């Protein structure tokens, strides 16, 4: 009995050993073929551009601008410049060609203090960049670079010179990716489109605007107000009249959502300044720029100057106690005509 059991045990043991031995060689295989599902990342949203890509794009833009500056010819600008900036820059170059000097305000520093890269997957896409101050201590510039579609490259769409002491909101770091906004974003003090329209009204009517209380005072309002008053004195002297109208340009608005729930809005507001000289006098260009743009045209009693204004407004969230405020602007006459 004992022997039989013993023998059975031995046989079982040997069988187990043999099974183990036959299984061992399988360990020598290379393993299963990996599949993409094993290695693919979870859909963490990536920024549209790396900081290196953004720097490369900006360098390309600046290079295009410098080439145009050199030639004082806006001919090759549209490869990297578009929108209101294209109009402004073209005007500046025309003026430069006429006066021989480029306005210092056209300087765009090569270094940036901050870049805001969205992670949105569709098009158009905007990238905001804030440069450092210029060499001659001019204020920082807010650059808006836009990619209209996948097959187009980024172009400089708008530049706004930031007001002194203006506080910009915070944005996510470029490695995380920010979020673009829309013109009709909710949850703010007012939609970005409304903010632009109301600000245009404030620029036009000044203190008398019904939206004047919505906005805190800023440099653009003050400077336009002062300029209008100055011109008004002259116009009063010869019994003329002047009128400025500010009209937001349709579709020319770019919005970036900040980290604190507000929106940074950059939009184009066109303005037309009509100055009529009374008593049969001629209405002449009011500045060197206007003069340069006017060129050798024949002045009449009425002069109509078209300005392209780019304004940067920060619209806080509806729960914030801060007012809507303009943080930067650019203003450039683009057309002067005697009518």
């Amino acid at each position, binding site marked *: 009995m004992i022997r039989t059991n*013993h023998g059975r*045990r*031995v046989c079982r*043991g*040997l069988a187990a*050993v043999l099974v*183990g*031995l036959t299984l*061992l*060689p399988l*360990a*020598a295989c*290379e*393993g299963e*073929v*990996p*599949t*993409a*599902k*094993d*290695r*693919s*990342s979870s859909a*963490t949203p*990536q920024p*549209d*551009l*790396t900081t290196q*890509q953004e720097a*490369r*794009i900006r360098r390309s833009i600046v290079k295009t601008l410098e080439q145009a500056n050199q030639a004082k010819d806006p001919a090759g600008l*549209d490869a990297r410049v578009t929108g209101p900036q294209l109009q402004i820059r073209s005007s500046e170059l025309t003026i430069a060609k006429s006066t021989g000097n480029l306005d210092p305000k056209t300087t765009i520093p090569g270094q940036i203090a901050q870049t805001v890269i969205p992670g949105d*997957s*569709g*098009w158009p896409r905007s990238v905001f960049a804030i440069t450092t101050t210029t060499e001659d201590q001019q204020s920082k510039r807010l650059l808006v670079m836009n*990619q*209209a*579609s*996948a*097959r*187009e*490259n*980024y*172009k400089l769409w708008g530049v706004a010179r930031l007001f002194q002491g203006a506080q910009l909101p915070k944005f996510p770091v470029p490695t995380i990716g920010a979020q673009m906004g829309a013109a009709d974003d909710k949850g703010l003090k007012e939609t970005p489109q409304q903010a632009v329209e109301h600000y245009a009204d404030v620029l036009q009517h000044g203190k008398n605007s019904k939206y004047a209380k919505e906005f805190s005072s800023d440099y653009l309002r003050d400077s336009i107000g002062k300029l209008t008053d100055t011109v008004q004195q002259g116009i009063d002297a010869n019994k003329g009249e002047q009128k400025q109208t500010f009209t937001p340009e349709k579709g020319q608005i770019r919005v970036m959502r900040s980290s604190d729930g507000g929106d940074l809005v950059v939009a184009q507001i066109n303005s037309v300044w009509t100055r009529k000289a009374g008593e049969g006098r001629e209405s002449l260009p009011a500045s060197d720029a206007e003069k340069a743009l006017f060129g050798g045209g024949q002045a009449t009693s009425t002069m109509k100057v078209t300005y392209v204004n780019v304004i940067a407004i920060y619209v806080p969230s509806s729960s914030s106690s801060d007012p809507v405020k303009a943080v930067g602007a650019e203003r450039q006459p683009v057309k002067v005509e005697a009518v």
Partner: protein
Amino acid sequence: MSTLANEETGEAVNRAPSKRTRIMRGIVTPTLGLLAVACIVFGVLNATVWKPSGGVEASASVESPYLVTDPGVLQLVDDQVTVTARLASGRASGVRLCMAMGSAQDAVGWMAGQRYERVRGLDGWTKLDTASERAPGRQAKTADQVDFEHSDMWRQVKCGAGSVTMAAEPQEGQVAIISVEKASGDMHGSKAAARKGAAKPKIDMTMRWEHRKVSNYSLPLYIAGGLLAVLAVLSATVFAMEPVRRRKAGGGDGRERPEVTVAEAFGGVLAPVFSMFRRSKSGKRHSRPAGEGPDGTEGRPKVVDVSAKNMVADQQAAGDEATGTDAAEPPVLNIPSDRGQADSRDHEGGADRQDTGEDMQDYLARLADEVAVPEGPGTPEASHASPDDREEEVPDATGQAGGAEDASADLDDSTVGAFPSADDGNPMRDGMHDSTVGAFPAIGDDAGSDGGLDDSTDSGEGDGISDETTEVFEPEGRTRARGLKAGDRRSDGKAKGGRGKGGDR
């Protein structure tokens, strides 16, 4: 019986090891040894002959102007990859091949609305799995479109005439996009050819990874082999032995006998608390010797009630040891202090008095024998205490410890008088009374200060009871002759207590 059992177990012990040892050494050990050797051998083979190959190369051939890898495909085998794309038609004029690394959404956006081939993964170790897809969306019709090579979207881009190779370490989510582009600048003659070529060109794509991290299959086998060898050795030696019975500690009962039981410990803690409450009721407790607890269990630590500590009693104890004649001291000394102080002290004084009562009796008896003085004036004084004593006969020493003025004064006298000599009958006593009594107030309080005066007043009161008192005190001598009685002891105690009681007035 036990020896028989021992013999049997002894035999069993002699028989079983051999069987066990045989099994262990004869079967288990060789088996384990064989397995260990096999593991080592296979480990060596895995390290040499069966070592996994270093590189993986997979390819595919597609007919499409675009070829895009799925996210994650580039990093399938290793982080670094070399992608090669070749036009099947070779270097064709008017077309060129471009390859770029970018995000999947950018690649799809670039191909919006167009058909493309996507590489989904590996189909075996040498083939790529591809599928045809149409990109969503529509191409924007703008004039400002750039060519593939100059798009801002790609992280890396490379173009070649007939083939292009790119080595990259792509980040997560990055894809490779291969596009057959019109060769720029070659627009004129080969326009048609370019268009035709770009429509459905045949692309051969190869992806190559190098195994930088090769799985080490030999190491686990080495480890397993080592463990099996150790097991084999153990099975031949330790496991082949019979488990040894553990000896029991102690004598059959391994439990330790605790020095103090839990009940005793609790009792010892609570006893003084209870005894404090019960002092007024019975004096029996206090007749116990100091070394015993309430249960009378030996070995319990003596619980010392600090508040009940009686320095006088301690002195008496020390005095007892030293002289043996001052047995009467503590009671006397206690009395004045009792008058003005806590009952507990009196209590203890009473206890001490109880304890030293016998000693005092002996001492007084001796004195009585030596002196043989009839009841003296001290007795009337001492008699004051008697009514109190009698009243207090049953009650405990609290009453006795009450600190009665008269009685205590008288008793003080007697005991004080005991200094020079013991008994009431001592004529010297009175004189001594005065002096010693007078001396006492310094120690005692106001009650005792007028001890002498008290004596006089007391004696007035006590006249009527003098006989009884005399009887109370006298028996000390008689007691001695007759031998000590419990009642006498009690009377002594009472006498002492009576002092206290008398002071209640």
